[in-house]
């Protein structure tokens, strides 16, 4: 297990370093002179040179990269060109909103997805199965920027139950969490169904039935726990995506999280902030995925033995 753990952490570190390099290179993809793009054509030459120097763009590229990585290691991400504030402060302000939305959306996904998937698997081939899978296919196919406005139309504009946007009061989280949660529930339900269908064919399920257990107990106590492993991976992947800020959903609902900050940074050509957002999002994603892998390996010895070879 130790060997698997160390290997997994090392490769996560390599991935993060690679992400940092790509994020660093982004600013060099700006067409033309990035300083001119950021400050506008009317900027004074002295200001341009000052910014060029502050961003280190007057140095050779390898030195720039070295300084950039050094800054990240010291948790110094620079200052925002727009608000002139330290970027770490900006990120810290936005993280709670994104985290809150991620957790609530995940709860929505699990409470909807797991029962629906179980229902479909245990009544395979019946109308229940077709209806559940039909709904989940629909859920997979509706993009967030369609689902969000639809929910706003029905529940805010027509019924007036929830606020249209923002993060004031407890009711504001309902619609963005539903937008994200239903889409994830659809994926989760399909995963639970296929995983359960596989487990239900196993010998220990036949044994459980043969010794006279009720179907409810067979499913809840014997089948579901054994079907949980692949489902945990999917949940981990989805939590990672959510923690990264569901960019589009945050924009639809003006939810003041990391995703909204990312788009604001693009619109204001505040590239240092954009880079920092991307780094943070990828970091959250990699950390959650690595943690999921480790949990998975802790629960299932076959994985760690297979991969440690």
């Amino acid at each position: 297990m130790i060997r698997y753990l160390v290997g997994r952490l090392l490769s996560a570190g390599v991935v993060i370093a690679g992400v940092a390099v790509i994020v660093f290179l982004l600013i060099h993809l700006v067409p033309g002179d990035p300083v001119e793009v950021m400050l506008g054509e009317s900027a004074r030459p002295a200001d341009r040179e000052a910014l060029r120097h502050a961003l280190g763009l007057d140095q050779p590229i390898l030195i720039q990269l070295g300084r950039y990585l050094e800054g990240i290691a010291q948790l110094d991400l620079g200052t925002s060109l727009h608000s002139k504030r330290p970027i770490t402060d900006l990120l810290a302000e936005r993280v709670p909103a994104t985290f809150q939305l991620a957790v609530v959306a995940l709860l929505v996904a699990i409470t909807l997805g797991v029962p629906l998937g179980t229902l479909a698997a245990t009544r395979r081939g019946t109308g229940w199965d077709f209806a559940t899978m039909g709904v989940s296919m629909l859920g997979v196919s509706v993009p967030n920027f369609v689902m969000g406005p639809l929910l706003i139309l029905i529940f805010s504009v027509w019924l007036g139950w929830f606020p249209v946007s923002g993060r004031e009061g407890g009711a504001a989280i309902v619609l963005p969490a539903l937008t994200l949660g239903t889409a994830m529930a659809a994926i989760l339900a399909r995963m639970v169904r296929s995983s359960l269908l596989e487990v239900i064919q196993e010998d220990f399920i036949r044994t459980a039935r043969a010794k006279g257990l009720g179907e409810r107990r067979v499913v809840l106590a014997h089948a579901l726990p054994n079907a949980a492993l692949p489902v945990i991976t999917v949940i981990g992947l989805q939590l990672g995506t959510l923690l990264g800020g569901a960019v589009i959903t945050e924009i639809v609902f003006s939810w003041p999280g990391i995703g909204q900050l990312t788009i604001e940074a693009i619109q204001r050509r505040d590239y240092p902030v954009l880079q920092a957002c991307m780094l943070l999002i990828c970091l959250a994603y990699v950390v959650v995925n690595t943690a999921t892998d480790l949990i998975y390996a802790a629960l299932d010895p076959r994985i760690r033995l297979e991969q440690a070879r």
Partner: protein
Amino acid sequence: MIRLLIPGAVLFLWAVLALIAPMVPLAPNKVDLMQILSVPGADGWFGFDALGRPVGDRLAVGARTSFLVAFGVVSVSMVVGVFIGTIAGWIGGVFDHLVVRIMDVFLAFPGILLAIALAGILGPGIDNVIIALVTVGWVGFARLSRAQVMTIRQREHVQAARALGSRVWVIVRRHLLPLIWAPIIVEATFAVAGVVIAEAGLSFLGLGVQPPVPSWGSMIRDGTRYMLVAPHLVLVPGTAILFVVLAVNLVGDSLRDRMDVRLRAGD
């Protein structure tokens, strides 16, 4: 077959709209001030938007945008990804290690985040949208074809071809690719659905095609401001995206079922 009829019809309509849009006298940018925000009716089947432009005509031209981006991105991603993945799986060793590392780094960007950042930095425009989405899209094909090549490389017929002295190119073309194309086609089908959503998403964020060129995503974004008086501005393009994505996913599902069966029977 019945299962494929409706999705097939939707996709056929999508393709026809996309391909004939330039030949039909559509007026996606014709402003009619008397019709601003009018709901669907006799004058326009799908109503008019906030500038008095016909939503139906914009929908048709938007179909062209999403179709061109989807097929452009998926075909380029497929060629690039399969090329890299096949080489990595075939050669193995240090090169393969490097490719796997690079793929891991690209996979560490959740969803369309990297495409959003790239499109934001490169600036709006259909070519930049395609570049951004290919940058994200090749990885799936590379990973899939690498894994496929690595298993098939060990089979006897490939060993035999090597022993007979066939050139690598001949082995790959005649003995590897015919065996891996089925999963790749399935992957490509689902990729079309992903790219349709991604293109519309980028346009929704204002990072896609430039106005006044219509895109379903930017139509939705413009429509959200008038939801109270003209919900059709969101509902019409939203339904179009839903139908296309649903149809592509259904076709993908049945392709997967069908091809899996064939693979199993052949084994």
